């Protein structure tokens, strides 16, 4: 079981993802350089957070033109698992693997703190382990995390159960107060139609161990492992 962690120029959460996959989960983890095409037989691709290509032109605009993204798009089309975290989520939307787009946070600030998210759909390979109260405490760190999709797109997403995570209060209440960045409907994470591509703005790789303040991120990684084991 191998995790392939993409490195774009400007990615800065790649090492945390590598640690989560390799150090905490103790699975095989490799880096995938943006200029390469080889996915090195990875079973799950991770697009980490950061500021790929310096956010030049607009956030995540350039990443989709890279050789590695061409390989990842083919991989995803065949059903391969792709996890996009923060900037990685933004890259997936720009590449058309996920719907929607991103805007600057409504309060014009870069927000770096723990938030709570409610898992709306636990029937995905990325959230199957999120049972119980389905509330996860995960940190966010972003300046352009405001997710946007028009009404038509949103309706389709709800119909197909593609809305996966919503910002909420510690008690699980989804409202304006619990929305850190103005995302439409408090949406914090979504998946594609086939549920093999998942994007989320919070950073699960930063909370896989209690010493970091929360280990709720491990639910997402363990869900991925369950799914991959089932694939064998």
């Amino acid at each position, binding site marked *: 079981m191998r995790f392939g962690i993409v490195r774009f120029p400007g990615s800065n959460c790649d090492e945390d993802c590598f640690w989560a996959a390799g150090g905490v989960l103790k699975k095989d983890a490799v880096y995938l350089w943006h200029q390469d095409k080889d996915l090195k037989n990875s079973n799950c691709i991770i697009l980490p957070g950061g500021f790929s290509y310096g956010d030049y*032109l607009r956030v995540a605009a350039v990443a989709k033109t890279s050789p590695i993204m061409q390989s990842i798009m083919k991989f995803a089309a065949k059903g391969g698992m792709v996890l996009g975290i923060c900037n990685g989520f933004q890259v997936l939307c720009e590449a058309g693997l996920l719907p929607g787009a991103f805007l600057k946070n*409504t309060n014009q600030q870069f927000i770096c703190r723990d938030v709570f998210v409610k898992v709306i759909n636990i029937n995905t390979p990325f959230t199957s382990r999120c049972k119980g109260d389905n509330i996860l405490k995960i940190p966010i760190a972003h300046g352009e995390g405001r997710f946007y999709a*028009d009404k038509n797109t949103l309706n389709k997403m709800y119909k197909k159960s593609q809305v996966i995570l919503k910002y909420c209060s510690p008690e699980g209440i989804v409202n304006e107060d619990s929305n850190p960045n103005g995302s439409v409907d408090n949406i914090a994470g979504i998946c594609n139609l086939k549920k093999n591509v998942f994007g989320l703005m919070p950073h699960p790789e930063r909370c896989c161990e209690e010493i970091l303040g929360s280990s709720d991120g491990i639910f997402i990684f363990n869900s991925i492992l369950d799914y991959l084991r089932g694939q064998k």
Partner: protein
Amino acid sequence: MRYKVKAYVTLKKGILDIQGTTIEKALNALGFNEVSGMHIGKYMEFSAEGKNKEIVEKRISQMAKKLLANPVIEDFNFTMHQLGDK
């Protein structure tokens, strides 16, 4: 034929332009209270070659769709003139 292209990208109408609002408030704070409806966008300039105007315009629209603007949230507008024109 060579053309000089001037393009600008703005957020679609109806999308909260938080930069625009902030800059407008900043201008108001400086005493320029006559300003309203501020939107911040991007300006691009480049040269493009092609057989004729129509082909170049079509190619620019494709560039806009694939990279220069995000069609989910942005509008792309441009003007062009043939280089060598007075």
